[in-house]
């Protein structure tokens, strides 16, 4: 008889993770699991608890209560093991402006105790990966914001970590630099790295991440796939184009309990169905017998931003 294989250890798992600062609870019993190889989006308003979570996972902060494991290592009991396999990029640069690019990476390589013989090649490789090879001899102070951000990413990669924690890596970047940064992250995911990325730019997370979590006031609101989230919280929205009287049509639609919301907009009516079991034909069945002429009926795509606005209340701490 063969014993069933043990489930793989998740990249990150937290249980009832709580962090209190004085009277403020920054993290409130957070239970989160990130699988190996995930590109995981961590979403929340300012002050929601994203940075606190990342700092705890990076072993920079200790939780008040609860536990957090990174690849099976407890962040409190075995911080050194965690630090060796984890790369943390905070939401600031953390650079010496009077240092050269290679010097900076060489220094952090030495801090991670990489042997000197290996370090030179590693520095070259990570600079190539983030597209900074041409700037290797430049002073950091002379680099643009986008380049400094990429240098931060190169620093994170210097010790070849299995998991990357990136706090707002694309903030303040111009569109081109942002697209390039996202491409680098996708390349890293292809290389098998697990990436947790906190960001406000939800449209990018939507296409980039395979799983997301939404956090508000330190509490986890949702964790799962992007599609699952849109199905669960998105509802279905239809745009109805009418020949006339869109205001009256919206009024009529609102009388149906299967319709959550109906709003008239420039000759259109935006209709949100209340449940997954309700069919779009209900709209036609309601409007046509009442004498309205339907010119067009189409489903509108619900994005992550729309879902985020629906599930969060915009509360900050």
């Amino acid at each position, binding site marked *: 008889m063969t014993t069933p294989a043990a489930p793989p250890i998740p990249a990150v798992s937290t249980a009832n993770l709580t962090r209190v600062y004085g009277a403020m609870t920054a993290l409130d019993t957070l239970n989160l699991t990130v699988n190996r190889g995930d590109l995981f989006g961590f979403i929340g308003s300012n002050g929601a608890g994203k940075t606190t979570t990342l700092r705890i996972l*990076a*072993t*920079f*902060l200790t939780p008040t209560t609860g536990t957090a494991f990174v690849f099976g290592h407890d962040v409190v009991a075995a911080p*050194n093991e965690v*630090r*060796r396999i*984890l790369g*943390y990029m*905070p*939401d*600031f*640069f*953390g*650079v*010496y*402006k*009077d*240092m050269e690019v290679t*010097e900076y990476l*060489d*220094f*952090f390589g*030495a*801090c*991670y*105790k990489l042997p*000197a013989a290996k370090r030179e090649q590693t520095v070259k490789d990570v600079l190539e990966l983030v597209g900074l090879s041409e700037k290797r001899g430049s002073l950091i102070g002379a680099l643009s914001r986008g380049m400094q951000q990429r240098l931060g990413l190169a*620093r994170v990669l210097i010790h070849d970590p299995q998991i990357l924690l990136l706090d707002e890596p694309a903030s303040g970047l111009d569109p081109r630099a942002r697209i390039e940064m996202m491409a680098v992250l996708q390349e890293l995911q292809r290389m098998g790295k697990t990436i947790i990325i906190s960001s406000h730019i939800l449209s990018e997370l939507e296409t980039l991440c395979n799983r997301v979590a939404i956090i508000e006031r330190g509490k986890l609101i949702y964790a799962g796939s992007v599609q699952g989230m849109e199905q669960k919280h998105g509802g279905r929205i239809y745009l109805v184009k009418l020949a006339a009287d869109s205001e009256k049509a919206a009024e009529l639609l609102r009388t149906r309990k299967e319709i959550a919301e109906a709003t008239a907009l420039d000759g259109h009516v935006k209709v949100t169905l209340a449940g997954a079991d309700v069919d779009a034909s209900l709209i036609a069945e309601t409007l046509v017998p009442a004498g309205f002429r339907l010119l067009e009926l189409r489903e509108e795509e619900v994005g992550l931003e729309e879902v985020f606005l629906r599930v969060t209340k915009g509360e900050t701490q």
Partner: protein
Amino acid sequence: MTFAPVLIREFREEARRPANRWVRVGVAALLATIFCVLISTGPQAGRASGDYVFPKLHALLFGAIWLVVPVMTADCISRERREGTLGLLFLTPLTPTGVVIGKSALQIIRALTLVLAAMPMLAGCFALGGVTWFDFGASLLINLTSLFLALSAGMLASALSREWPRALAAAIVFSGVGLFGLLASFVVPVYRGPSGALFRSSPFGAFSWALNYCSDANSDWSRMAAAATAAQLSSAMTGFAVRLLAAVAIFGFVLVVAGLAVRHAAQESPPSPFQLWLRKIFCEPLWLLRLFRALTRRKLDAAPLSWLQQRSWNARLTKWGWCLGLVVVETVLITFFSLHDFLGAQAVAGAALLFGISLSSAGSYRVERQNGVLELLLVTPMSEGELIRSRIWNVWLQFLPATAVFVFAVLAADSVLPNSFETAALLQYFGIIAATMPFVGLYFALRTKHFITAWVCTFGFSFALPLSISVVTSWSVQGLALPLFLSFMLSVVLLARAQGTLTARRFLLHTP
């Protein structure tokens, strides 16, 4: 010219700093303690000892003004440049001179609190007897003159610098120039007069006399008040007042120059080709480049944090600059002074070295806290203990060459003029303080927001406190045991607390 918004903002910021209150209370308490100690240990304890206490208090205040005021003022404008707020101020109707005046007004008030804190004690000397109005007037005028010159040094350094270590170094150099100018104003009239033969034969002796006269170290004013006629006293007082007016004029001139420098600094520009050329010629290694690189690479492999702290030419300049400076001073002393004075001057050299160590210790990991690198270092496999050990080791290493010169000079002087007590006391005191100061400095550097507060606490706890205890317990080899033991214990406690601060991340984080 508008400067009120800057002044109001500066006042508000000052009022919000809780450390300020404690520093003021601490300074007043320290002065009161010294006052009581001096009364109780004076030659005529309890009666008519005002003439014994007054000169010592004045000397203390005089020294404190030259030491503390430039350091306190050095970062007032340079901080705005570093934080990028200076340019924003000039988008408003404020003028550079207005900004400088607004900033300087607060610095004047801060500096005056030093004088005000000492006033009750100085006035108390009247009650004890033996102090004349001439003593009091001379002390007030000399201290105010010093205060304006020291403020000028700090403001000018701050306007010309961006980084605080550079501002601090410039402030110390400028204040040295200011003190030299003040002393010269006393030396020159005598030097040119009929009784200037002695000064002409020994210019250093002349400046030593001027320093003693300004600090009233030999109670010259009391003797003068007793022996001189009213006209002579009036003439001397007029001389002091003229020097004060000159100091105020210099301060005004410095404000104008600082305004111009600030106007220029607001438009940040990259270094010119000439500056780059100078840097290449004087700050970068030209010969044995391969050997230099191999050595630095080896250091990086063995101790990355040591490499970090010694990588810049600034750090190397500081290390060897102290050594070279001390060699020059010792050479000058041995050439122009008697051997007895040479040995006596070693206490001043040791104090200067400790002053340098205190500055370096109080600046521990300050840059790393500001730019966020400390946070990044704490998520590498390096432990908090490694960070602490590395920093302390580096402060010691930085001052090792200068310390070797100092110890050699003391021992050399002792071999010619044996004075086992002075030598033993000096070396014991210097050794323990130099060894423990980096621990104290590191703790305060991590726990305080501003460098000045960290430095004042470091210098106060590791240098002034043991010295005060030594004075109380009388200056003897046995008397040194208690303060030095306390210094050692304090450093052990603060080392543990520094470790706790880093582990619990209780240090103030940078503001992005």
